[in-house]
């Protein structure tokens, strides 16, 4: 039962990761690309590693995996926010419909 739950969690997370990568490749603008890089990536990492925790059981490795989840859940949106703020302050204009791709 716990193996089944873990396998489904990891599969769902990997699907989120692939979707996030396609978004980074396909979106028209830096800001939308940062959106595609930050949110599906963090969610995919959390689901994948929580699935590994469920498969692994209660060991020291699970505690370290939970540490990675907590660290990335705080750090990844912070890093993307800092990049977006730097881009906005250095004068990068957001994309809008009807304009050529910057």
């Amino acid at each position, binding site marked *: 039962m716990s193996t089944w739950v873990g396998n489904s969690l990891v599969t769902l997370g990997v699907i989120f990761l692939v979707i996030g990568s396609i978004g980074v490749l396909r979106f028209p603008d830096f800001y939308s690309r940062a959106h595609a890089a930050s949110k599906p990536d963090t969610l995919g990492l959390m689901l994948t590693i929580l699935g590994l925790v469920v498969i692994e059981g209660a060991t020291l490795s699970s505690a370290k995996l939970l540490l990675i989840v907590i660290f990335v859940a705080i750090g990844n949106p912070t890093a993307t926010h800092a990049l977006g703020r730097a881009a906005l302050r250095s004068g*990068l204009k957001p994309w809008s419909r009807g304009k050529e791709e910057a």
Partner: protein
Amino acid sequence: MTDLWMAAVVTALLLPFYRVVNGPTVFDRMVGVGVVGTKTVILLCLVGHAYGRLDMFLDIAIAYAMLNFLGAIIVSKYLEPESGPQ
């Protein structure tokens, strides 16, 4: 099952290299580098799970996550123009 997961994560890791090589601005390149770093952390955990020795790979994964975060913060501080009186 772990082979399929690792193949999918490697595919998702190789796609943003296009954005790293010819992103129009330097911020696009940094976003691509961040995505590649996050997926490398997941790939390290999956490789440790496939080998059955997760504890050896986890310390490397933690260190890589911290380096990825610090790199993005430092580069964005470097790229941000000075605020205050010009």
